[in-house]
């Protein structure tokens, strides 16, 4: 029983992390129907950005978590946003009217490029790097279940930010513009919405969330490596698909489901943790085949 509870807790924390990344996928897909394959790498780059920020701090500031931690978040987010904006402007925007495969292949290229760039140019990035100990230490013990405080923080941030995002998109003027562009870019344009601005903004929102996720990832797990983006990116993409691409709520719920599948499959399914990824991919394939619109998406109408 306590194992189950512990695994559920682990799953929820993983889900919270995946949710932050999945939102970026789902928003971009909702607007321009692009699987932004490189979004996972934005998350990875943000993590290194946060670490770099810490490294650059003067020594006395490093010792004060109250200063260092917010600065790391800022650093991570700034790097993520910069990368995302550059990527959108120079890689994706010129291809907006290209055949469908072109932006997808570009996204793949961006992904490989970012990962390699960090590996080659970030000092010692060839192996895992430790994350600074400025995060709250220790853990919350509920009976036999142990939850690190950083995990609690991660869940809080993830749920909080997705609620804010959902509200913003539903209530604000820009949010309406986003939804309009997602529905019908041409009409939205006629209504005076600048699609370029909306798209850039979408990328920025995704990057901010990925930035938070990147820094929190380091804080929660104490170590980062250049492969974290690819792996978690795939999980996040699966979550977005599971929830129904384009749906904010769906992405978050999908992410928690994926987190739980991973930990529970590792615990209870045959093959154990060796095959926990495999189950996620199996779920992905099953969802795509049997409910391609996801749990919360509308069935797609055929355009003729």
């Amino acid at each position, binding site marked *: 029983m306590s194992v189950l509870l512990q695994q559920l807790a682990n799953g929820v924390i993983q889900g919270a992390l995946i949710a932050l990344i999945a939102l970026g996928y789902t928003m971009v897909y909702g607007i321009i129907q692009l699987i932004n394959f490189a979004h996972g790498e934005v998350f990875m780059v943000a993590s290194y950005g946060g670490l770099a920020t810490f490294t650059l701090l003067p020594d006395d500031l490093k010792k004060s978590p109250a200063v260092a931690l917010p600065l790391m978040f800022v650093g991570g987010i700034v790097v993520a946003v910069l990368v995302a904006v550059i990527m959108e402007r120079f890689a994706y925007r010129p291809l907006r009217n290209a055949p469908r495969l072109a932006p997808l292949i570009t996204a793949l290229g961006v992904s490989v490029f970012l990962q390699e760039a960090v590996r080659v140019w970030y000092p010692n990035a060839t*192996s895992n790097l430790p994350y600074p100990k400025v995060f709250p230490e220790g853990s919350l013990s509920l009976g036999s279940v142990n939850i690190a405080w950083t995990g609690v923080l991660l869940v809080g941030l993830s749920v909080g930010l997705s609620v804010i995002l959902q509200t913003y998109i539903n209530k604000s003027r820009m949010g309406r513009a986003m939804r309009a562009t997602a529905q019908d870019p041409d009409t939205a344009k006629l209504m005076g919405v600048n699609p370029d601005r909306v798209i850039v903004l979408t990328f920025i929102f995704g990057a901010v969330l990925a930035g938070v996720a990147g820094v929190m990832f380091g804080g929660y797990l104490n170590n980062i490596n250049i492969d974290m983006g690819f792996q978690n990116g795939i999980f996040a993409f699966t979550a977005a698909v599971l929830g129904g691409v384009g749906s904010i709520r769906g992405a978050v719920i999908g992410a928690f489901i994926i987190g739980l599948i991973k930990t529970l499959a590792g615990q209870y399914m045959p093959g154990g943790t060796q095959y926990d990824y495999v189950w996620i991919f199996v779920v992905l394939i099953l969802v795509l085949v049997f409910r391609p619109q996801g749990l919360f998406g509308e069935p797609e109408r055929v355009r003729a």
Partner: protein
Amino acid sequence: MRQHSVKSAAIVGAALLVLAACGSNKTEGGGNNGGSCDTSKGTLTVGVVAPLSGNLSALGIGIKQSAELAVDEANQKCTVKGYKLTVSAQDDEANPAKGAQAATKLSTDPNVVGVVGTLNSSVAQTVQPILRDKKIPQVSPANTNPTLTRGNDFLTAPKRQFDNYFRVCATDDLQGPYAANYLVEKAGKKKIAIITDGKTYGAGLAAELSKQVAKKGGQIVGQETVGEKDTDFSGVIAKVKALAPDAVYYGGEYPAAGPLSKQMASAGLNVPLMGGDGIFDGKFIELGGKEGDLATSVGAPTESLATAKAFVDAYKKKFGKEDYAAYGAFSYDAANAIIGALAKTIDGAAWDESKRDSMLTNVGSYSGSGATGEVKFDQYGDSTNKVLTVYSVTSGKWKDVQTGEFTG
């Protein structure tokens, strides 16, 4: 559009030129001339096959540079009379097919006297036969899979596989059981959980350990595998924690082991983590290795070996930092074995391909004291250096707690 690309090409070109425009290093970099040694007979090459690009390049570059260090020293000391030595490093991309290509490239060069490499056992499998056909000795700094030297039934019916293949590192069937003895007999940990990264090194090590644990009356309570690129181990830890082990043995390398240890502690699983030489690295502690964690390593403790310190100092002097990585010292020893054997083979005469047979014999009978201890090979090509040391993390540093030979 075209205008743009012309412009940017021009800018890039200009930038490159400006970057390069730091005057001239006309006098620098030519230090390979071997000082005052006689190099009249030409140049001979020590090949290196290792991953120089991709994820494993840190290890590969450590191997390459350590071999370069050995060659430089030999050039300075005029170890090989009449010849200048160089290193030719080939990238195998950790891919067996590319490894074969790299080996072919080296094997077609008559001046290649020996090859240091590979890192991956799977790459070694393709490299071995190619070099054997040309009778080029291959000394691996890092392959720990016992089948490479002694075949599939390495315990029951060992049989030499390739007479050109040697290695200076310890095999899994030595290190694993030694660790098992320590855990069960010395530390009294009867219930042991195993986690591996599923790669040749880690899985092999863990397999040998578990056999010995059972022999000594201990119990393997569970076995889990994590992905080699994982960073989050919470699922595995929760699973292992439920089994209430006395210790966790991790078969793999420090990048995952450090965080694993740390996450074990924060998940409330406060038992020592033990691993092989793959986790015996300062980075393990940096990444979260905790007090009381254990590791085995080949040879006697470094502090007690003047040769090891000398290697580290020389490496730092040549390359500026200590990035020789896990297998640097082994690679240095491997290169020195080749150089030593070459010096003996040539012995004032001239190199030609007819000398390859005696070169093989001389590598086999090489004996020297290297950065990892005594370097010598047994009848299978394995290192005879069977001295192992158990280290423990004590006040933020690795400290040796037991040194000895595995005796069964």
